[in-house]
Structure formats: C-alpha cells, structure tokens
C-alpha cells in the first residue's frame, strides 16, 4: 500500500478542536524560492487582523523556531490568522545559505504578507518578529504600508548585530581550546568576506552582501513612514526595557506611531535567541535535557495576544 500524492496532501492540515485552531503546511514561492510555511487559522470566525511572523537570521532562526510556533498558536487560539514561514536557505525551504541576506528576508516577508492578505476574511496585517526577525518585521511594516507591528527584543542597529554575530564565532573558537595566535578572529572573518566574498561563521555561510546590507541598516533612520500601532517588547532578567527597545520606541513615537512598551522578566532571558536546551540531572538522578524558554515564550505570547486583542477592538471601532 502506498499513499498517493493527493492522500499525502491531506496530511498537510491538522485540526486541534480543543484549542480551536487548524494548521496547514503550505509550499508557496516566497522571494522567488519554493518555501515551506504554516498557515494557522481559528476554527471559529477569524478576526480580520492577521499576523505574519518574520523569522530571525542564521542559527537564531532555529533557536527561535519554537518561540514562533508557540506565539502563532496562541494568537490563532485567540482568533487571529497567522502565517509563519521558512525563507530561502532555512529549514525545509529550497535555496541555500548563499541566498540568505537582508534582501531575501525582506522579499520573503513581502510575499508572505501578500499571501496572508489573500486569505478569506483577512483585512489587515500585523508584522511580528523577535531579534533580527523584529528588524525584518519593522522594515516590512514600513515598506508594505502595514498599520501594525509587534517586536520583541528588537535588533535596531544592523552593524551592531553583525559585530555580535562575528564575535560569537571568535568566542566559539576560543572555547574550542585553540591556542592564542590560532584564534580565527573578527579580522580574519572580515578578510575572508573581502577576499572570497563570504565567511564561515560558526557553520553559517555569511556573504559579503548580507554583511554589508545588514550593517547599513538602522531602524532609527530607516523607519520614517510608519505611523501605525506598535508593540515593542523587551526580554530581560530584571524586566526592564532594553536600550534598543527604548530607542526604537522613542523613534517610533517621533515619527507618529502609537507605541505600547512591554517588558518580560525571566531568569533565562539571556538565552532568548540562543540554544536553550540544558543538560541536567533529574530528580531521580537520570540525565535529561530541558527547554529553558517555555515560560518566557508563554509570557511573550500572552502579552502579544493581549495587544492583538486591543488592536482588534480598535480596528472594529475604526470600522
């Protein structure tokens, strides 16, 4: 017995009656590349406000993957259609790491917005993103004329993000016990970018084009037209807003946006966007691995749902 393609296609969708949601795998072309996406819709009447979740960059896309799934499911359970996707060179999509750059992220986000906007009952789109995904979401909201934006722990300055991205490689090399002098430092990576047009940054093939275009991005300059509603969230141990979130909020207010600031306190905040499965010894002495980001993600999802609910109300009032 084998399942023909039509039967197999039937397994692309699942329903969760208890949560009141349905999820469906799609294989749309985003940014010119065959991608894999998941469209989540409430089983009951959907709100006209839909969310597109923009993913992060490099290995952060993996570390924030479950975060995006949890947020999408929470939003959908609250009535919002949500589209999340994997861009070229990520996850199950086609393309490879050579294709990855700010331009590819933005082209995919643009097409994802169009895809969600074409769904029945969707009238408005909010862009959502965490870390680098926040930067993509903000630029997408700006360029596509979206009226709503939700970001958590946003990357505001691309040059600073790229510096951190390269430095992480240097720390990794040092931790792998290479002696002094053998360390493949930031200088070496910059030389590789210059000489060969790419560098191997902890297994990620960073192109010079991606390095340059991200490095030239600064939300405090690049956002000029967005006058909609924004949720700007911080994730810290103490629950205080980060400097990046504060500066983004101030800038958004300066250009006429309506901003809600949120801060989530969590002891594992420093692992947001990083590998977050900790090996430990369980209560019975057995070895186990635990996900440290579950509670943090639930808090973020809860605050985002609340903000989305308020925006849905204001949308109804506007109507």
């Amino acid at each position, binding site marked *: *017995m*084998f*399942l*023909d*393609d039509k039967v197999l296609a039937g*397994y692309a969708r699942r329903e969760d009656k208890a949560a009141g949601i349905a999820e469906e795998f799609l294989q749309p072309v985003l940014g010119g590349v065959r991608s894999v996406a998941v469209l989540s819709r409430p089983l009951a009447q959907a709100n006209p406000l839909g969310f597109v979740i923009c993913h992060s960059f490099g290995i952060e896309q993996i570390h924030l993957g479950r975060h995006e799934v949890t947020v999408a499911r929470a939003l959908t359970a609250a009535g919002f259609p949500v589209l999340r996707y994997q861009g070229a*060179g990520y996850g199950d999509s086609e393309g490879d*790491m050579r294709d990855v750059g700010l331009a590819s992220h933005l082209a995919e986000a643009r097409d994802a917005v169009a895809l969600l906007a074409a769904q029945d009952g969707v009238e408005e789109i909010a862009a959502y993103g965490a870390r680098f995904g926040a930067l993509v979401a903000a630029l997408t909201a700006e360029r596509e004329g979206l009226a709503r934006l939700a970001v958590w722990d946003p990357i505001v300055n691309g040059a600073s993000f790229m510096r951190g991205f390269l430095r992480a490689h240097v720390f990794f090399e040092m931790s792998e016990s290479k002696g002094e002098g053998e360390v493949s430092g930031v200088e070496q990576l910059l030389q590789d970018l210059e000489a060969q047009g790419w560098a191997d940054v902890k297994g990620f093939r960073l192109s010079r084009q991606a390095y340059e275009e991200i490095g030239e991005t600064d939300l405090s300059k690049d956002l000029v037209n967005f006058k909609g509603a924004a949720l700007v969230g911080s994730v810290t141990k103490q629950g205080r807003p980060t400097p990046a979130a504060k500066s983004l909020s101030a800038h958004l207010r300066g250009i006429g946006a309506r901003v809600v600031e949120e801060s989530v306190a969590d002891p594992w905040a420093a692992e947001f966007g990083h590998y977050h499965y900790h090996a430990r010894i369980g209560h019975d002495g057995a070895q186990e691995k635990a996900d440290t980001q579950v509670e943090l993600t639930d808090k973020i999802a809860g605050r985002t749902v609340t903000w989305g609910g308020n925006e849905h109300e204001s949308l109804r009032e506007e109507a």
Partner: protein
Amino acid sequence: MSEHAVFVPYGKEHIAAVVTIPERSPRGLVVLLCGIGAPRSHRFQLWPRLARRLASEGLAVVRMDYLGIGDSTGATTTWRYEDLPLEEVRTVTRFAMEAAGVDRFAVAGNCIGSHIGLTLAGTDEACLGAACIRMPMLDRGGAKLRRRARRWKVASVVRSSRLLRGALHPVAAATRERTIRPEVREAFVRAVRRAPLLFLYSQEDGTYDAAIKRDLEQIVARMPSDPRRSYELQVLPGGALKGLESLLIQDLLIEALAGWLPRCFDPEPAASLRA
C-alpha cells in the same frame, strides 16, 4: 523528487514531518533524526540537503520533529536519555514507508537520534542499517572535565609537583576510566548482529577518543566474522560535529552519509508499491 510536509497523527498529538519521494520508484526509506533542540531540518539545512541527495539515488527520506519541538504539537519540555521517543519515530517511519510504498528503511541520527537508530537496528526487522553520528557512549563526564582542567593554571602547578601529582592520582585515574555505558554496549551488540552500522565522529569531538574505538573493536572482535564486516567507524577531519559549526564538517558529514546509506539497500527498487 517531491517533498511533502505533513502532520502525522500520534494519539491526540501530531508529529510534523517532511517526506521526500524520489522521481523513480524508491529503493527504500531513510529516516533522518536529530538530537534534542534541533528541528527536523537540523542545523544549516543538513537534513534537507542530504534528503535531496539521497532522493537522487532513488531513496525516499523522512525527517521529523519530536513532540514539543519544531512544528510538532505536544507540551514536552524535558527529554530523558532513558525515555527515548522511540514510538514517535516508529509511527513516522511506518507512515513514511506507506507513503513511499516500501517496506525497508535505514536510519541516520545524531545524539539521541543515534541511540534511537541503534535501537531500531537491533530490534526492527525492517531496519537495514543505522548511521550513528557523534553518539554519546561514555559512562561519565570525566574526560570533559580533564580536558577543561588541563587549561587551568592550577593544572601546571599540579604537574610540576610530584607530591600533588601523587595525591591527585586516584582522581585522575577514576576520570580516565572511560567505559561504554552498559545499555549502549547492549544495544550495539544486538544491532551489529543484524544490521550494518556506521559510527561517525570527528577528531575534535569530546564524545570520541581512542578508548571508545578500542572498546568497540573489542566487542566486534569477539563476534563471528559477519557482524565484524557490518561495522564501520569513520572519524572525520574538519572541526567538531557538535553543532555542525563549520561548513567543511557539514559537507564531510553529508558526503559520508550519502556514500554509506544507499549501500544498505538493494540497487533496484524492492518491489515498490508506488507507481
């Protein structure tokens, strides 16, 4: 080749998976598994890259998210080495074999995925082989501690003092005693008797050293000649397999698996049921 992203029903839950079907009738199915924390595509698209390569060799492939990871449902937040998600893997494997119209599979996995692969190779009649990547085999974390301790300043003080060396000798001896975990030894013996096994490590992995190589060889040497031939160890250059944090090790790993996995199957489609 076609790829199908699916939700495989699993009790009240759904396991997210991608099934790759080659253009011609598949010779068999390869199941690709991750360690805890990586989604079904693994880091840096390792599994999609391998799946597409294997599809060109006439093999169907499935990769999956364990419950609580990636797009799978489930509220699992803690995973235990003693409680492997074996049933999840068996369910997805059955689904993918049916989808591809084949009745044989081989498996490749890292970390707990390698444990699952080894277990299936030893217990499932349909399993034709297992590639175990960077399999943690040791009973204790002493080696890791020793490697770290060598870099401490106090280590050079200890090395320079005969008195301190003597005092610390029992501790050093205890951590040097690297033994393969009994359950892994048992699974290995069971698996190597009935299916080809490939063990893959890199020169820079803390989970591998000469003692492991020697122990495995000793186990195999005590066996009749057939199982001996079915066991292979490859130690890759090019950086640590942990985290796959170099492009070179990713390419070497794909090459090694793309070379070994197709050899588990007959060269012709095995009475494929797929048109």
